[in-house]
């Protein structure tokens, strides 16, 4: 779109909730941004349909008091994010306005604060030479943002080959000062500042290629890392009924994951959950660097009571910020809670526009929209050979807890890791409630990941994981048999099969997210405990009757659980390990 085009004006002619119909006097583009003049405040809106000279816009604010005849001015560009140093540690609304610099306790309509601090000076260091070639995303220089090397890049909007004409000397600059001048083959000069704009609904493609993911992304959550690992540049989703622990899961991952940058999109969810992040992240330490978690985190908060159109925008804003940092060669983790709310926002608009509905009244193109969004994640090789990645994990809130609904089904087609939260596990307080049998990680089948896992953890690691899964599956079968035939209707061996899986469930799958020690389990510790439970499972035991099995394993589990609660390899840890050895010794067949 041409930014210099004369801006079209229009007048409001119809209002249905946040859908406003505007009579326009000139050209408008689909998804163009417009501002409705309401008293002193311009209300931001986006064109979502055009019929003749009527533009249908979704307003990112409450439309209370809006009247026909009010003036609208179109901006000549799409919904854009402002990208530059100073994004980290900030709390934005869905349209990337800084929530902290807004005035008052209540949100005010039309109060649009800048995304970046325009006054702050950043200490710039050039990374390129005048005369060198540059394309979109080329690294021109660097500033330190919370100790993270923040690359200043050639604007993503550039097309074709450019040459660096001049580059600012090392020194302090604001985000709007020119730090470089680029020229195209015909000598047209483009001044470049640290801040740049990018339309959020378009993917940033400033990289060379996107390989298949091949590296584990450690989260410290055993049931993920060990059983169904997520990878750098991978995609995953967590569907589950309410109360099954989706948000606790996501928070645990956002705190512990091995990422340089974490972008959290709180999309149409509870405000108190976002407040938890605001309150805790500035206090908590990043387990990987020892610095505060907030230093690597950006939060996009569009809580459920904030305008619904901005909710749709929020996930795109978050993805664009993630792409920006990926282009710097960083490992970005993007979390969206919940993508169902985003889909519902689409449904509300589609409904107001009286489109023919698809399944459950969602728009027909919902699967396409979802798969398009997930495809923006991934690990990439940048043009300078460095790698950067976006790992994306979204939660899904299936209506009625039923996984056969459009959002879950559409997501299942594109996300490669599936973490099914089970109501049954949640009810019996087996947290995290990820069902070990329903869930999967497709990445575990990738030879390139298997190779790195076996190199990094243990030579036959993938086999051990398979072994764990087999024991769990056999345990489930045994438990069904016991339920049908009764405790005394099955052999003692069946009880043993069941209890071996219980050991794995209690010690590897279950994890106390609220216990300081147990909350995060590093890979080395996970390996140790996996070996321990496999050792228990492989120990030949003898029992006189099935009644002895239950109390025995309760003690085994109690000892192992105390190990989980103790600092790794501490005196306490070893004490319980010894206790376990003695308990096993009581029944061991030599």
């Amino acid at each position: 779109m041409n930014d210099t085009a004369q801006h079209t004006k229009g007048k409001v002619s119809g209002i249905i909730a946040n859908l406003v119909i505007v009579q326009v006097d000139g050209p408008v583009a689909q998804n163009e941004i417009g501002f409705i003049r309401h008293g002193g405040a311009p209300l931001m809106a986006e064109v979502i349909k055009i019929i003749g000279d009527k533009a249908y816009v979704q307003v990112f604010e409450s439309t209370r008091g809006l009247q026909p005849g009010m003036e609208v001015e179109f901006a000549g560009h799409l919904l854009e994010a402002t990208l530059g140093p100073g994004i980290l540690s900030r709390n934005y609304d869905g349209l990337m306005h800084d929530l902290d610099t807004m005035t008052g306790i209540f949100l005010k309509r039309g109060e649009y604060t800048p995304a970046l601090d325009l006054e702050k000076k950043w200490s710039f260091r050039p990374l390129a030479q005048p005369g060198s070639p540059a394309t979109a995303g080329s690294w021109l220089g660097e500033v330190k943002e919370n100790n993270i090397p923040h690359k200043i890049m050639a604007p993503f909007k550039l097309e074709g080959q450019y040459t660096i004409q001049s580059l600012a000397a090392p020194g302090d600059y604001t985000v709007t000062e020119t730090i470089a001048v680029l020229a195209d083959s015909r000598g047209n000069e483009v001044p470049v500042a640290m801040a740049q704009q990018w339309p959020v609904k378009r993917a940033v493609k400033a990289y060379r290629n996107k390989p298949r993911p091949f590296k584990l992304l450690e989260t410290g959550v055993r049931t993920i890392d060990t059983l169904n690992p997520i990878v750098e540049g991978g995609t995953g989703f967590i569907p589950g009924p309410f109360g099954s622990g989706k948000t606790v899961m996501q928070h645990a991952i956002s705190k512990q994951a091995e990422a340089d940058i974490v972008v959290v999109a709180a999309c149409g969810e509870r405000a108190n959950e976002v407040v938890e992040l605001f309150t805790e992240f500035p206090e908590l330490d990043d387990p990987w660097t020892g610095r505060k978690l907030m230093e690597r985190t950006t939060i996009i908060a569009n809580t459920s009571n904030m305008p619904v159109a901005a909710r749709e925008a929020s996930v795109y804003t978050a993805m664009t910020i993630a792409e920006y940092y990926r282009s710097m060669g960083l490992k970005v983790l993007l979390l969206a809670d919940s993508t169902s709310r985003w889909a519902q926002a689409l449904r509300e608009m589609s409904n107001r526009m009286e489109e023919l509905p698809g399944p459950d009244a969602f728009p027909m193109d919902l699967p396409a929209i979802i798969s398009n969004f997930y495809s923006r994640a991934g690990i990439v090789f940048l043009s300078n050979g460095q790698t950067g990645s976006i790992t994306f994990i979204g939660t899904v809130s299936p209506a009625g807890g039923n996984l056969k609904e459009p959002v879950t089904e559409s997501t299942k087609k594109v996300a490669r890791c599936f973490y099914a939260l089970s109501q049954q596990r949640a009810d019996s307080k087996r947290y995290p409630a990820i069902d070990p049998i329903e869930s999967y990680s497709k990445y575990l089948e990738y030879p390139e990941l298997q190779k790195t896992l076996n190199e990094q953890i243990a030579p036959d690691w993938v086999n051990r994981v398979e072994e764990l899964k087999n024991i769990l599956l056999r345990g489930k079968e045994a438990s069904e048999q016991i339920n049908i035939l009764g405790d005394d209707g099955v052999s003692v061996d069946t009880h043993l099969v069941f209890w071996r899986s219980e050991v794995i469930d209690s010690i590897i799958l279950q994890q106390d997210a609220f216990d300081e020690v147990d909350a995060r389990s590093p890979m080395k510790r996970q390996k140790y405990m996996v070996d321990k439970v496999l050792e228990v499972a492989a120990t030949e035991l003898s029992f006189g009757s099935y009644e002895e099995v239950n109390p025995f394993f309760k003690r085994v589990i109690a000892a192992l659980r105390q190990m989980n609660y103790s600092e790794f390899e501490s005196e306490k840890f070893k004490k319980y390990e010894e206790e376990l050895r003695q308990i096993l010794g009581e029944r061991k067949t030599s």
Partner: protein
Amino acid sequence: METRAFQRIYTKIEEITKATCTVRASGVGYEELAMVAGREAQVVKIMGDQVTLQVFAGTEGIPTNAEVVFMGKAPTLKVGDALAGRFFNAYGQPIDDGPAVEGEEREIGGPSVNPVRRKQPSELITTGIAGIDLNNTLVTGQKIPFFADPDQPFNQVMAMVALRAKADKIILGGIGLTNDDYLFFRNVFENAGALHRIVSFVNTTEDPPVERLLVPDMALTAAEYFAVEKNEKVLALLTDMTLYADALSIVSNRMDQIPSKDSMPGSLYSDLAKLYEKAVQFEAGGSITIIAVTTLSGGDITHAIPDNTGYITEGQLFLRRDTEVGKVIVDPFRSLSRLKQLVIGKKTRADHPQVMNAAVRLYADAANARTKLENGFDLTDYDERALEFAREYSRQLLAIDVNIDTEKMLETAWELFARYFSQAEVGIKQEFMDQYWQEE
């Protein structure tokens, strides 16, 4: 409501449905209040000069030449300290024979709190009911509904919680309350001598259903006044939110909107969230806590109303009759308070989280044992003990007629653990075992 001088009066209504009418008018704002033949109405759609109004009291008897007057503002409530102790209808007009309230006029359904201006809820609300305080602790600034079948005593429990909760103000939003229940609330509050700290907005089953859409907004506007201006701890009771959602679906149906799941409007989640998210803890000390009721049909929580509610609220409380002990209990499996983690073990004794979890786990073992028993299998010694534990746990802790402090609840739980189980079976951190285990 009085009309003022120089207001334009329209008298040509072009369309009338059961809940809405459409009139040609200009200069009208979205969501503006209007009077149609003396009945309150609100603008829900504008198409050029065609303005669609939702008539709260219904359109029965409205003629096509009825007078339509626009009021130039959204529905409002006059707020002030004089609200305390009073009963109002859905429009904020007194129904208790008292005088009209004078005060600042505020539009209802106002803007949301900036999330960064919220404070993390951290203040415990004690109710004396162990099923709540021990297992599902409530916190100021929380929003939580009772998911209940219509025959359960949810209004009684709610009134009890409200009176014990030590709130500065209690705001009752009665949405389609039966007259009997309305009088029940009135009596309970009066008998407790608590009337001076209670404000009620009531729509009974005798009133038109669409009026119900106003009640929660009225109640929460009053709540916001006391929490923001007076820094008070406000408890808002909304009963029954299912009838609110039903009113939403009536209007959306009359406006020919495409229904989504269970004939509910596609915007149900946002509509409910806008209300529930008024629950907040402010920096300055004021707070709004919302306890609501969502009635279920046949216990079905997958219906769109409880389902969307569950995704919005911070947990839910279930009541159940425990036939073993013949008492109504707070169901420990299905109930959940999401904010309890912010206070348990921090504002309460350190062993609280583990004791709570262990007790529920053992109670679950008892449930398994009962299934075995029903299927005709023999019980192990452990099963027998679990069953006995469950009975006492139900009687001494889960029953809603229990009224003890949290410390006592924990002691009772430890006592029961030691009576029926070994330390390994209870499986709590050793530090706590050493401190609290009571050998018989």
